[in-house]
């Protein structure tokens, strides 16, 4: 009987090891361990043994059963793994084939730049203000200390809607200074981007409609030093840390003192090159301390409050940022252009 068990052991373990599918392993389990299986058959012969032999043989039989059971489990696990591997192999794809295309719209490049500027100012506690484009000359000019005979009021420069030149298309975002001062509680920190209009024929650098960003601060104790500190910070955020700046006296009717802000030419570093027309500097924006007459005209006491303002052109900034060479591309809206940004 011992011999029988020995034979069964060898035969079953070999058969299990050679089985090739979970189904055949299961068949082997039934064949060897099932109710009518070979091991059971051997155990049925136990009755013929002596009482001394029985427990010994019983133990051997139990050992054999668990040995076969283990072998079956092991084989099952291994076959499962092999099959999975085979399946995965057949499921392989060509990973170099293209992915499914997803829709991706693009912000207009100029508004990309505008949003960057808005974020810079919002970070400093500024609000964004919108206003009318069809504007009273009073706001576009008069309240900004631009006198009646100023050339910018000419019909050759400004678009008008009535013979009295009372209503015009705003030529600058500066009237937003007046609107803000007249309507907002103090202190004011705001920027006002928007469309402006001048009577310029379309060419590579001109358009009758373009965009400006106005900015203004009104508070107690605002100084030109504050103007410089703020605008330097803004310029560094737009053009990179360590950008060299130069403040240069200039003239605007609604600021006094007035200045223009230049940055050292990024192309030549200030030595002078065609990009900066040999000057070494590139003009970025105009600014100045809000003229006391303008403050007073908006009902703000210039003896208590002071402020500064700036204005910059958006098109030129965006063109510089993205090396766009022709302004007409901005308003042409060719998708091959738009999708580059």
């Amino acid at each position: 009987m011992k011999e029988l068990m020995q034979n069964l052991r060898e035969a079953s373990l070999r058969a299990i090891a050679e089985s090739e599918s979970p189904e055949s392993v299961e068949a082997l389990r039934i064949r060897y361990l099932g109710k009518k299986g070979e091991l059971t058959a051997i155990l049925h012969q136990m009755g013929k043994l002596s009482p001394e032999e029985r427990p010994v043989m019983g133990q051997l039989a139990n050992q054999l059963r668990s040995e076969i059971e283990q072998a079956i489990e092991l084989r099952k696990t291994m076959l499962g793994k092999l099959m999975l591997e085979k399946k995965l192999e057949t499921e392989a794809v060509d990973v170099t084939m293209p992915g499914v295309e997803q829709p991706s719209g693009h912000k207009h490049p100029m508004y990309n730049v505008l949003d960057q500027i808005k974020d810079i100012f919002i970070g400093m506690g500024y609000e964004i203000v919108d206003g009318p484009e069809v504007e009273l000359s009073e706001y576009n000019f008069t309240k900004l200390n631009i006198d009646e005979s100023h050339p910018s009021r000419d019909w050759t420069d400004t678009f008008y809607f009535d013979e009295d030149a009372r209503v015009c298309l705003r030529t600058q975002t500066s009237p937003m200074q007046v609107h803000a001062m007249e309507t907002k509680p103090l202190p004011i920190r705001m920027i006002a981007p928007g469309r402006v209009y001048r009577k310029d024929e379309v060419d590579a650098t001109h358009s009758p409609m373009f965009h400006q960003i106005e900015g203004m601060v009104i508070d107690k104790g605002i100084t030109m030093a504050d103007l410089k500190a703020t605008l330097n910070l803004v310029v560094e955020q737009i053009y990179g840390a360590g950008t060299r700046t130069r403040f240069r006296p200039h003239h605007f009717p609604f600021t006094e003192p007035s200045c223009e802000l230049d940055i050292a030419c990024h192309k030549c570093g200030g030595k002078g090159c065609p990009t900066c027309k040999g000057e070494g500097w590139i003009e970025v924006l105009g600014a100045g301390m809000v003229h006391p007459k303008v403050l007073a005209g908006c009902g703000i006491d210039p003896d208590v409050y002071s402020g500064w303002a700036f204005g910059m052109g958006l098109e030129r900034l965006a063109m510089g940022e993205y090396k766009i060479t022709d302004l007409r591309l901005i308003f042409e809206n060719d998708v091959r252009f738009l999708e580059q940004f």
Partner: protein
Amino acid sequence: MDLSRKWLNEFVDLPLSEVDDRSFAEAMSVSGSKVEVTEDLSERIKNIVVGRIVKLEKHPNSDHMLVVLVDVGEGEPRQICTGAWNVHVGDLVPTALHNALLPNGTKIMRGKLRGVKSDGMLCSLKELGMTTHDFPYAVIKPAALLNDYHPLDPAKPSISADIKAGDKIFGKVVAAAVKAIAPAGVNLWDTVLDIGESDVESVFDCQNLHEGDLVAYDTAKNRVLTPEDLRAKQEEFPNCITDGILILHEDCKPGDDVGVLLGMDDHVVEFEITPNRPDCLCMIGLARETAVTFNKPLKLHEPVVKAEAGGDISDCAKIVIEDPLCVRYTARMVKNVKIAPSPAWMRERIRNAGMRPINNIVDITNYVMLEYGQPMHAFDFACVKDGEIHVRCAREGETIQTLDGTARQLSTNMLCICDTEKPVGVAGVMGGANSEIVGDTGMVLFESANFNGASIRRTATSLGMRTDASGRYEKGLDPQNTWPAVQRACELIELLGAGEVVPGVIDVLSEPLKETTLKLEPDRINALLGTDVSEAQMRDILERLGFTLEGDIIHVPSWRADVEHYSDIAEEVARFYGYNEIPIQFAGGQTTAGGYSERQQLERRIGQCCRSMGLDEIITYSFISPSYYDKIRWAPDDPRRDSLRILNPLGEDTSIMRTTVLPSMLEILTRNYNYRNKEACLYEIGRIYLKRPDGMADEPRIVSLGAYGEKIDFFVLKGWVEAILKDLGAARPRFTAEKANPSYHPGRCAKVWVGDVCVGVLGQIHPLTALNYGVDAAFYCAELSFDALDAVKGARPVYKPLPRYPSVTRDISVVCAASVPVGEMVDCILADGGEYLTDCRLFDVYTGGRIAGGMKSVAFSLTIRSDDQTLTDAHAEETVAKVLKALGEKFGAVMR
């Protein structure tokens, strides 16, 4: 404004060796006088020297060229070939050496001309970039040389080929041979002519005469005739021309640099002067800025006039200001005027300042304008009727011919300089031809006046003639400047010997001149600038700029009309303290919250949603052409055509403010389509402009969507609109068919509603609209009102517990009339499906086959769920029954 560094040195000691162009430009720019560009004039002209002609002979291989030996100061003369016949031995000529550069960019190299070595080139006036205005003595008058005669018809020559001295040509004109010739002054030659039986010795002014030449000599008038005198065509005397080499009559010697001789040893600085500083549009103004910038003394000169002619100006002239637009009129008189070219130094300065020399009188007026910034005018006083100048506005119907030869119609708001009966000049703009300085002018009245700037600008603009003078006047000039300027002009008259100045000055003011005074408030200035500038430094800066201080009262100089406020004083201090010395210091102040407003956030959100669906953002013009309303097929009487009209548009295409964004979108779609871009999906959040009774506009924003392409159809567009509304948390929108919109396809257009609010319109563009854009393609557009979107947007979402019980789905299929809108069926199902119906989705619409004509089969998938129990089949059947009943009652639909 162009500034000559050489001339500047007369006022401020600032040689180029001390301050180079770059440092000068930087320092002036940061003190407020922006330098645009600097040009070293000597770079324009190189290696051209004065040469003296020492030998002159005919070219061996040419019938018209000469070979000359030129002493250029090197010892050994150079051999040069030239085609010009106006040179003589002894002449000083500009000689371009090997590697010379001419102002027009031409390089001159040594070479051979018809086999003869030519070691450079003799230069004409034109080749040096000059005209006879620059060198008046360089006008060339050629004699008709009979040895250069080329008959038009060789068979019938007007002058026989074998003509010799003494032969008669016609009348008293005979052929004469030049026997001897010697210079006798500028452009004059003492010449001995052989006229056959005798010789004649006389002085002639033709530059091309040489020994051995045969000329036409008028014995009666003692003149050598020119081709013009002979009424000959130029080709008959091809080498007797009015062009030739510039013969120099300057103080120079062989080897001298011609660039220096022409005043091109100068650096010219171009300034951008802001309109508030007309005082800087002249040498003295810029010199003052320079002196303060570099902390140097300003050397000013007070004009001295001897006025040695007899009498007094008041004896012969009277000036009346009839209109206060003339602020001041200062005049002096010069008699026995001798019109002549002005001296080289004056011409050079005028030239380097960008103007053209004319003659001494005109040049003096321009010179004084450049030096003092005061425009001047010189009248031929003989042409001023009754010797009276009346400054008044033109009368109805008056005209004047201005100096440029154009007849001008004057209007009654134009200030004019008149005599007792007619205008003789347009004040501050241009003089009249009727009183122009001409060769025989004897008496000149110098006008140095001050006019209202705005008036001059209006006049110049409406006459379309902006001049150097009007450009200055319009910015508002210093009324105190008229006196020193007229004095300077008279001083120059005497210096140049151009006439005799009559004693006395007429000076008329229409009102007393005002002076501006301000208080010096150092603390206030420092508070505005954020600086700590000492009062002493402020005073120093102001005084050097010409302000005078009495205690803390600042007297603003008359030329600084722009200074009228303490903030202007702050700017003066800041400019010379240095804008770049002002500290960089945040003021602090009260904190503000900043950020985007709710509407701005909504706008950003819509943009983001559009981009997430693959739409590209565009920017279009706010103005359009009125004809665009025709293109989008609006009825001629459509009230939306009532647009704000620009009275002075650039052109028809940009003449009205749009009341719809549709044409803008269609234009961009068309452009992309014409560029053969396969697909375009675009959006813009743009304004429209709706006329208000007060003449202004409401400017609501419109979300404009537009697309074309293979994958685009009505339902893609509708999906975008639905997605935008869903993103905003709006309630479920309703879409109603819109057949009446003329721009859109009548069967593929819908209005979109949320509740009672119409959010906008969407659909395929009408094929006829597309055709109006020249396009045969399906364009899809949507126009959504931003205000409506704002109104229907959802509130902040509140969390709803996730379902705890499973849902059941039931599919139903019904047959109904084909005309029943599916949207209404869905509304009906959702409304009447009972408490457990949570969703209803269309999944099929089918016509044809076994479905009867005019009918359609519609299939929906119903989701049925309860929040507090697991639903049974009975619940589901109950819901389906409710739905079928409702559909049956409302639309006559029956289950399939």
